[in-house]
């Protein structure tokens, strides 16, 4: 059920959140936690469906609302998870919360998401910088769920230091699976670090996927995109096969408040995932 139908059914306006509970909080790093969220209403829970790359608006009652992208596998119907860094008003309040706390959820939002159906029978390269791994996690989990539908899968992931690498357990699990390759690098290694050093852009020249048979997804801090795209273009990857998840101030999620404007598009409605071809027409996007 789409968001709009849900609104109609409940006779609510588009600004009314549904009540949900934080059922589990996982500690990832000193600044990041993963929140597992379950809707109170059985019907809403059953009908909540999302696609990799979409986001929800989370209300902390009394404080306000903020957008977060979903990190869990879309095939899990009973719950969804958000990975949240403690940086703002809402996120720091969330970090103080205990399991069982009630929150409000609107969404999922975004008509631009990672095209996991189109990617079938192709290679997929996923490039993440820092917290940018979060929106990609949903896609990675989906792909691994239907692993046989896809060709080679590679994750290129750069973090600031070894301590800030997120989803370490999951990464460990990937290396045990053997059907997904991983290039990990950190900017500031500690003395135990034996892997790559530097920004993740440096790892791209080593990717040997054929340019005409590969889909690429990128998510990271705003500064990262331009450098990644330069590297991808050197490898002659097609712009229409490169998908980028953009961040802006998405306050309403429904294309009304206008804060997430880029050129003539709105990130909340037209995005948050755009392909590079679209972004070429959006000045200021990168």
């Amino acid at each position, binding site marked *: 059920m789409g*968001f*709009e139908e849900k*609104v109609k059914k409940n*006779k*609510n*306006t*588009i*600004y*009314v*959140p*549904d*009540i949900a509970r934080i059922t589990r909080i996982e500690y990832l790093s000193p600044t990041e936690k993963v929140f597992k969220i379950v809707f109170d209403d059985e019907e809403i829970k059953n009908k909540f469906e999302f696609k990799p790359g979409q986001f929800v608006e989370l*209300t*902390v*009652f*009394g*404080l*306000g*609302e*903020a957008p977060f992208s979903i990190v869990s596998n879309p095939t899990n119907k009973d719950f969804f998870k958000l990975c949240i*860094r403690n*940086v*703002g*008003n*809402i*996120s720091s309040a969330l970090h103080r919360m205990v399991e069982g706390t*009630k929150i*409000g959820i609107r969404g999922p939002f975004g008509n631009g998401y990672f095209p996991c159906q189109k990617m079938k029978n192709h290679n997929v390269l996923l490039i993440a910088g820092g917290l940018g791994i979060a929106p990609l996690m949903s896609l990675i989990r989906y792909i691994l769920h239907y692993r046989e539908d896809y060709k080679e899968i590679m994750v290129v992931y750069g973090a600031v230091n070894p301590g800030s690498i997120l989803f370490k357990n999951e990464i460990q699990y990937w290396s045990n699976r053997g059907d997904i390759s991983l290039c990990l690098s950190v900017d500031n290694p500690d003395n135990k670090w034996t892997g790559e050093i530097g920004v993740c852009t440096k790892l791209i020249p080593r990717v040997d996927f054929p340019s005409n048979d590969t889909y690429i997804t990128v998510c990271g*801090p*705003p500064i990262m995109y331009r450098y990644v795209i330069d590297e991808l273009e050197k490898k002659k990857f097609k712009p229409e096969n490169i998908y980028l998840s953009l*961040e*802006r*101030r998405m*306050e*309403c999620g*429904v*294309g*009304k*408040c*206008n*804060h997430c*404007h880029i*050129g*003539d598009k709105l990130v909340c*409605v037209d995005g948050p995932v755009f392909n590079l071809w679209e972004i070429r027409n959006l*000045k*200021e996007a990168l």
Partner: protein
Amino acid sequence: MLYKVLDKGVYRDFVKALISEYEFIGPKKKDKSEHDFVLIKDISELDTNYMRTTIPPAKKILFPPNEQLVAYELGENINVRSVVESSKKILFGINAWDINGMNFLDEFFTTDFIDENYISKRKKLIVIGMDSEPTETNFSPSIGAEYAKDGFDIYLTELKNRYFVRIATPKGNEILEKYTKVNDAIAEDFKEYNKYMDNYRMKFKMSVDIKSFYDDFESIYDNGDFWKKIAKDCYSCGSCNLVCPTCFCFNVKDDIELNLKNGKKIREWDSCMIPEYGLVAGGHNFRPDKENRLKKRYRCKLKTFIDKFGKYACVGCGRCIEACLAKINIAEDINLVKKEVSI
């Protein structure tokens, strides 16, 4: 559209009847140069012969500066409900460009997702339009907004001894039939009306060359020096947004009472010119420069909605030009873009 004429002799009684029957919002003199659209209780308060209103009347009613969207009660269970306030009103004496501004908001708030808070108010609003004197900064004929094709129920145009009446909706017709008497317009009335409109259009002093802006804007988009020069004096105060009939940006904030139980979500107008507009958690600002924000405003007003709705998000009312403390002039800037590009 039905075309009728209303005799001036019965006009006052017609308006009086509307004031007594409806919540009647009309222009009232505020000070020497300014009028404001407020609730009118007596016809003596009404002054339709106005020139300047600071806050656009339709926006003031349909998309107020502060508006509650959601109410909730916290406790064992959280009860959340939407708050939609609307009541039947007459908006009397709104001019053509403000009607066109409202038409834009109508389309905006019903595109993609339907904004019930706006549209439920709109559905109950009866709009009776009337021409008003343009200010010196008004350039609406260049935009094509000095004449309203739709969006109103009734539009009254003052001719010598009668009003030329355009009726756009059944509701408008009903009101006229119920509260007054109108006659069919005849060829002579149309003739006088056309003459009036020709004269009326002559009153607008400012004009802009908007035709080629769509492409010129892109060609000048990356010219940093040009935009720096244009935005040089901008104080990033947001006055231009507050007085604009089509500006719709808003913030939603939560507000909780001291008992920590009852709370609400409120939306309030935001401004794309203030530095916090593009600020996200973590401190990254996607629009840190004032020239970038001004450029974005011009894009939003003059280009974005040409692609989306086929119309400008500017009606040329000139309010932002009068409101700007730094004398930034959108009309001059449109012409300047043209000039700069054609060099």
